[in-house]
């Protein structure tokens, strides 16, 4: 399962990079899954900011929260609501964002 998430992620990161380079159209598919993260993880906040972080690392952490190998408070409860493709998309979307807003 872990390998599948990472593989997915790598594909999406290159996709996201190409979209960003193209300039105009925002990644709405990533936005409607990943923008929820920013509610708690806003830039400059006390809860780890996530924008611009490396996608594979983000996906691994979400995967760890989901399968219980990584401890947390609300994150294990939230990550259990995500499937592999959603985790990969969220990680890629966060990674592709500019750090300062």
């Amino acid at each position: 399962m872990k390998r599948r998430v990472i593989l997915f992620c790598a594909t999406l990161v290159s996709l996201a990079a190409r979209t960003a380079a193209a300039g105009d159209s925002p990644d709405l598919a990533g936005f409607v899954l990943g923008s929820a993260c920013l509610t708690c993880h806003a830039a400059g906040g006390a809860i780890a900011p996530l924008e611009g972080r490396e996608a594979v690392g983000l996906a691994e952490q979400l995967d760890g929260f989901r399968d219980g190998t990584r401890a947390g408070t609300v994150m294990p409860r939230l990550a259990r609501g995500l499937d592999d493709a959603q985790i990969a998309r969220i990680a890629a979307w966060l990674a592709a964002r500019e750090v300062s807003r």
Partner: protein
Amino acid sequence: MSALTRRHFLARAGVALGATALARSAFAAPARIVVIGAGFGGATCARYLRELDPTLAVTLVERERTVATCPFSNLVIAGLAGMDRIAHGFLGLRAAGVEVVHDSAVAVDAARGEVRLAGGRRLGYERLVVAPGIELRLDAVPGYDAAAVSAMPHAWQAGAQTLLLRRQLAAMPDGGVVLIAPPGEPFRCPPGPYERASLVAHYLARHKPRAKILILDAKDGFSKQALFEQGWAARYPGMIEWVAGSQGGLVERVEPARGVLVTESGFTEHRGDVVNFIPPQRAGAIAQAAGLADESGWCPVDPRDFASTRVPGVHVLGDAAQAGAMPKSGFSANSQAKICAAAIVAALRGETLPAALWTNTCYSLVAPDYGISVAAVYRVDNGTINAVPGAGGVSPLDAGADFRRREANYARAWYASISRDTWG
């Protein structure tokens, strides 16, 4: 085709036509989006509309120069924070290119695509987002009318009411009784009344240790109940008593002049030195005036994009909307607002909105160093918003002091972060 379905179909057809017209005229004037209400729903939507499409002309209509949030207002009531902690201005939204208009929306002309403001101005729109929060029903419980509000503050809309309840608690004698009367579902912030009882107890335990809190509830159970009751037993033993609706908790009448709540068909009168009566609610006034609410008082929406099923070209967000399994919370409104912004941008481009997830996380403080939470992930299935099975839930009952302390710290960090995400 039922009347509702037909109306809904026509509404969506209208939207599709609008989108096509816009897509064709790429060099025409920018699409105009008007957002009514600058709480967690409206402000978030305005901000992310501009982020997703900087060509949009986004106008945000808000009566107040600063908005005060219900989240964390219980800290103000308990003397643990000042109003400045929960007040938010509009510099961040203006910097994001949102035009902020301080006025009240009084009418919507959906056929013309126009909002009328109390000051007389008319704002044309291609899409309207209505996020007015709640209106308190001052016709629901006999005795609790507009005049009663100043004797028995609800403090369920933050601002002057928050400070009034704070002053009443400060003036109350030691050995006095605080009555808190929460309404039945649905209402804004389901765990809010119980966090309020907790933090008021925190204040009383330090300043008026012989005082008592009696919660007279319209319901037979409440959000995070086992966690709250565990926390009350640990931190405020003997101070808080909760009475279920079917066990005599349901308030049938109030007498503001005497500080009395009447229950059990008039057989029991409860007198409080401070009475926090939280009445039943409905969608904010403009939602009623615009015909967005149904007979329940709340606004039915298409769960995918929060488009009104009653008025074409209008979306309803936050507490005012009927959002399936999502609670009426600031986080829910913030989450709905982002998906709605994406849906509007997609529709204006003639694209289909990709499958979305909604999220809610609500922290409550039992004490400043004792936090508890509920979290869930939501998706659309069978035409409504349901929690994703296997995910979500509340803090563990068997967690230790360290877990509670961490969640209290997360609660404060959450408030700072969602405020920044919402108002910039």
